[in-house]
């Protein structure tokens, strides 16, 4: 990027910060930067407490644990343990698609199951209620394979011992009951919720299953892999799995999109763990590597460049059969990719996008946009850690604006100043951005579209970016009689 533009961007950052109280400006300054290539990091601090009153976009540990990691496991009943709201607002919001389940019979992903704490539960504690809930769950939903207890804020404040209740009731019903201490005040964002969720999954399912060799009928193959950190938003994991299977691998589980307790239990039987969302599930991959010697590899199934790269990288860890498989898969989809690019690239070439989301997407989608000719002008994470920003440098260009835990105020100013052709962020950011006349796609929920992973997903991704950017409405926001004005 030319020095002038870069300077202008730095100037913009200064201007925005200047509107904060001094103390706040100083803190926020550490989280915003114009990237200098080829620095090995983005030059921003991360994973630090949000500043009160600035309208952070972040959520909480409960959102990370229940909403992201545990919620998609379909054959468990996930209790939102505490008052009604948390479960209500997150009810069926994450589009974690499920195959073959009957709601309320053997799948509970799209249900809101809560202890609905009342004042008396706060005063006298909620453990008794939890005990009774387990019995009622068994009555109502006897085919459940286990229960998770997702703690909401009050639970951690009133001294409840959900671990004890879980242990006792687990013995009674002879199923997993996983107490997850993901109270909303823990940590600084969703991120700690992921970590806690990983740890509980490790302690209450993975290690126990390995210890007791739970599924003795499982027949391993040399090609067994596990998908980790794909939550099957709009079917993402399926559009990924299909490629892995086509190249000759056997996918033995999905963590946790469309996942089941059996897949979690048998996960450690994989020969290789394939991790898509590093942020939310690297913990358990590291654990499995350390404890069971299972190697893991990050992959990126957004867009044809990264898909091909990832397929090849995965294949190198297997034999020639799989390597040929990867090439066959890439070749098979190439004509479709060519057709998609031929149709959409001319409509999108040279457009600029600003990204602000969580997890892996602020970097992972970058090359998918490049494949379509769209440049990432700015990007940032809601709840990243330093290792995320390091990884981001492989994707972004010199001069890219990077923001960590951006406030709505900052985002609005950046959008106004940079006037990108597209913003990719979340539901809270969507409608305000659009009012400015700027096209927008939700990059959490895929704006109710998807899948975006894999080749099948890329076709949809391309279509969606085109329809977002080029919808005629974006030429209409100014009344024609005001045009002269």
């Amino acid at each position: 990027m030319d020095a002038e533009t870069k300077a202008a961007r730095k100037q913009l950052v200064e201007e925005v910060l200047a509107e904060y109280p001094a103390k706040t400006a100083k803190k926020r300054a550490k989280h915003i930067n114009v990237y200098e290539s080829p620095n090995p990091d983005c030059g921003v601090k991360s994973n630090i407490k949000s500043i009160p009153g600035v309208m952070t976009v972040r959520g909480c540990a409960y959102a990370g644990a229940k909403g992201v990691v545990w919620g998609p496991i379909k054959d468990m009943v996930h209790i939102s343990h505490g008052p009604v709201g948390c479960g209500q607002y997150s009810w069926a919001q994450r589009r974690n698609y499920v195959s073959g389940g009957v709601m309320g019979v053997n799948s509970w992903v799209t249900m809101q199951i809560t202890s609905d704490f009342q004042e008396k539960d706060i005063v006298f504690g909620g453990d008794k209620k939890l005990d009774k809930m387990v019995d009622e769950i068994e009555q109502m939903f006897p085919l459940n394979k286990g229960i998770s207890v997702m703690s909401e804020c009050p639970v951690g404040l009133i001294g409840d011992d959900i671990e004890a209740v879980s242990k006792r009731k687990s013995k009674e019903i002879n199923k997993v009951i996983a107490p997850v201490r993901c109270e909303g005040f823990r940590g600084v964002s969703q991120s700690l919720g992921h970590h806690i969720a990983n740890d509980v999954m490790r302690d209450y399912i993975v290690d126990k299953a390995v210890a007791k060799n739970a599924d003795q009928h499982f027949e391993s193959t040399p090609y067994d892999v596990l998908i980790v950190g794909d939550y099957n938003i709009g079917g993402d994991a399926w559009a990924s799995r299909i490629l892995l299977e086509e190249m000759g691998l056997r996918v033995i589980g999905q963590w946790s999109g469309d996942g089941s307790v059996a897949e979690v239990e048998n996960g450690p039987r994989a020969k290789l763990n394939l991790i898509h969302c590093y942020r939310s599930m690297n913990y358990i991959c590291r654990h499995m590597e350390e404890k069971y010697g299972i190697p893991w590899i990050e992959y990126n199934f957004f867009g044809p460049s990264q898909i091909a790269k990832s397929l090849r990288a995965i294949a190198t860890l297997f034999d020639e059969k799989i390597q040929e498989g990867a090439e066959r898969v890439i070749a098979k989809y190439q004509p479709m990719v060519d057709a998609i690019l031929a149709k959409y690239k001319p409509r999108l070439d040279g457009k600029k996008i600003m990204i602000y989301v969580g997890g892996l997407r602020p970097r992972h989608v970058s090359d998918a946009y490049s494949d379509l000719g769209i440049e990432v002008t700015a990007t940032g994470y809601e709840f990243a850690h330093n290792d995320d920003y390091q990884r981001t440098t492989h994707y972004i260009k010199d001069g890219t604006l990077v923001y960590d835990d951006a406030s709505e105020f900052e985002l609005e100013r950046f959008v106004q100043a940079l006037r990108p052709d597209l913003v990719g962020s979340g539901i809270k950011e969507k409608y305000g951005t659009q009012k400015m006349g700027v096209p927008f796609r939700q990059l959490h929920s895929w704006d109710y579209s998807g899948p975006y992973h894999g080749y099948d997903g890329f076709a949809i991704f391309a279509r969606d970016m085109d329809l977002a950017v080029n919808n005629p409405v974006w030429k209409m926001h100014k009344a024609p009689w005001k045009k002269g004005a």
Partner: protein
Amino acid sequence: MPQVADKIKDHARLFNEPEYQELFERKKAFECGASDEVVAKQSDYINSWEYREKNLARQALTVNPAKACQPLGAMFASVGFEKTLAFNHGSQGCTAYFRSHLARHFKEPCAAVSTSMTEDAAVFGGLNNLIDGLQNAYTVYKPKVIAVSTTCIAEVIGDDLTAFIQNARTKEAIPQDFPVVKANTPSFVGSHINGYDALIKGVFTCFWEGKERGEVTPRVNIIPGFDGYAVGNNRELKRIFAEFGIDAAIISDVSDQFDTPTDGKYRMFDGGTTYQQVEEAINASATISMQKYCTEKTLDFVKEKGQPVHAFHYPIGIKGTDDLLMTLSEITGKPIPESLEMERGRLVDAMADSSNWLHGKTYSIFGDPDFVYGMAQFIMELGGEPVHLLATNGGKEWEAEMKALLATSPYGAKGQVWPGKDLWAMRSLLATEPCDFLIGSSYGKYLEKDLGIPLIRLTFPIFDRHHHHRFPTWGYQGGLRVLVTILDKILDELDRETMKTGISFDLVR
């Protein structure tokens, strides 16, 4: 390979392709799930009377409740006032959820800040968070008023809002005279409708502080209550006031805030009740609540000030609107205008024209207590028969009022009232005693799917249809819209049903 550039299949169709159907089969082998027979048996069992009885007997477990928590209601109420920033004292995740929840319904941005309390605040109290939060919010967003409500953590640890805010003033985080509204809104008490109540009461408390009722201004205060159709309804109320020639103030009017234009500019604040109106409200002739259960404490407070109050139950249809207009007329001494009487006649006309399709249809209704009441009343006016009437956040008083309502009409004979029950209970009720249609929020779509009872979306939250809230449900015009919504569903279903054979697939209906 299912994708073709010319006709790209997304999730709705992609996974019906054989490639994916086979993938699902392969995956199933790793899931070690119950056998198809066992699943089928349980699927049948959950439709049984036996299951229903167990389901209704639940004491600890709540499944698919139709209610949210207090601070959501407080946030909704806050943004109905001029340049007022909703400010949650507690964990930041709560605020993110409230904002998303309202955004998904209104398809509008929802601004609100949090004090982002974390573990240290849980231990040492949220004083610093509150002070910093007020200062930042005041500086950055330049609101006229900040409306503070609480989430669980602040309530459980017992943060003292009054003292903390005073502290913030002392520390010059905000000016001495900057108005800060307070509402304690613990999520473990009541529901969003109580949070609404608390915030409105908080606004009155703040702005009527030290004041007593003086000379009466001929004006009516209207408190709409928590209403997903507020954009259409508040505007319809204002149109009615204009027809009437009545001076009326809507107390918490979100209609502009949740309907800002797309014209190149993002308005964080728009419209709303002015604080002049709020201050003057103390001397109004009377206060009318459109939703009794949203305003119990507020009305008590107003009554204590010596002002007459009236409360309705989300009035829909003829009698609901009649009563509202007659009350307005009574309070103001102004006659009901001819133009509204004409609208009344036109709604009656529409009801008569469509009566043969509407008569005798059976409905179950769920939602907030006032909505269920108002809707059931209108259904009976249409010759329809309410069956299951459920409000997760309804209590004994509501139950009694509902039963009294049902007793006023022969069309109420089938009605059963279910206070405090959730939608998993409703599932059993509908499986064992079905009805023709279900009226409620988007959450009802799972009931529609499982039981084949068509859902008519008419209350908050509506996540999966757009812009319905821009049209009114109140007043005679709103009644017409509700009637047409119901009738369209009836006739759509009839067409679908008769399309198979062609018999009864009539051109005229």
